[in-house]
Every structure is written in structure tokens, then in C-alpha cells.
């Protein structure tokens, strides 16, 4: 599925989107750290379809995933 990268994560990854395959958010997080080891030391949230995920959930592959570093608006 499509993963959108923002802020310091996009900067460190050198891109703004990537594709990851995972059947749930737990697997997704593991795959993301494999693809981007620097994530292990960063503070970030995962959004699924534009909502923050608080608990693990299944993914069917059509979701829009986003990795969000700390917010800085205002």
C-alpha cells in the first residue's frame, strides 16, 4: 500500500512516498523500520486513511498510510 512521508521522515528517506506490503499495522511498523532504520530513533505517529491509529488493526492494502513526525502548526 501507499505510504506518505512527511517532515523529517521525508527528509531522511529522501522521498515523500513509498510502497509497503503488510496485513496489519503491527507488520506495517516492522516493515517500515526495515525499509527506514532511522525510524527506530524518531518520534512519529501512523495515520491510516487520515486518522491516527491508537491500536493495531488489519489492513486490506487499499488504505492510505502516513508517517507523521511531531506537529508544528500555528
Amino acid at each position, binding site marked *: 500500500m501507499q505510504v*506518505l512521508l*512527511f*517532515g*523529517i521522515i521525508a527528509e531522511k528517506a529522501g522521498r515523500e512516498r513509498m510502497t509497503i506490503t503488510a496485513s496489519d499495522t503491527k507488520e506495517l511498523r516492522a516493515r517500515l523500520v526495515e525499509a527506514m532504520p532511522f525510524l527506530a530513533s524518531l518520534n512519529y505517529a501512523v*495515520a491510516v486513511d*487520515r*486518522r491516527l491509529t491508537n491500536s493495531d488493526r488489519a489492513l486490506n492494502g487499499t488504505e492510505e498510510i*502516513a508517517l*507523521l*513526525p*511531531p*506537529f*508544528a*502548526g*500555528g
Partner: protein
Amino acid sequence: MNDVKTHKKRDIFVEGAIPASFIAESIAKHATQTAIGGHEIFLGQVRADQIDGKGVEAIEYTAYRDMANEQMAVIREEAFARWPITCLHVHHSQGVIKAGELCFFVFASAAHRQPAREAVAFVTDEVKKRLPIFGKEILSDQTHLWKTNA
């Protein structure tokens, strides 16, 4: 949720700094709404903080725009549900905003000052907490730091 305004799809993002003339036009548009007795406004201005002896020259704002607008719609509904306000307008900059320029505009109007005041305080705080907006502080030596509201 009878108020149609709380449901209208809106995009809060503007490219570049928010000009003072835009704020004046926004205020002037409310002159025909004579049930309004008070307007409360918050404006965020980019501050030239000193970080390790280097000054912040600008902040480059980026956003997860769709999610930010969806979150903003939720905050709007909460504000209209909690306070008897007539209007609520929110705008945020994208792109490079120099120190001294305006990047954030929150504007609530109501019959009386207390609801307008409380709604602006609430919306200002919640936008900072809930909207996926990211800020790259560009320093005087052209290095940068990532700003966080936490």
C-alpha cells in the same frame, strides 16, 4: 449540527504568508452581519528565535493537507457545538514564511465577546495539537531544525 457552515468543505491552506490586507478584508465582510457584537482574532507570526547562537530566518511549512483539513472540520464542529458563535475562519500558511510574517489566522465572531474569545482559544490550541503540519526552521547559517509544538 444544523449550521451548514460546519459542513462546508474548506481548505485552510494558503500559499505563503498571510497578508494584513487579507485579514482586513475578512473583518470587513462581517459588517453586514449585525447580530455580531464581537470578533476575536489570533494571529501567529514567525518568531526569530535564537537557537545555539543562530537566528531563525524563516519556517518552511508543509502539511498532510487532506488529513489537516479533515481534522479542521472536526474541530470546527466541536467549536460550533460548544459555543454560540456566528462564524469561524481558519487559515494556515504553506511554504517558506519569513520571520515577522504571519502564518496562522483564527477568527471567530459572536453576539458576545466570551464565546468568541473561548472559541478562538480552543481552536488555536487544537489546531496546534491535531493538525499534521510540519515546520522546518531555517537558520541564519542555512542549516535547519524541525520545529515541534510539544
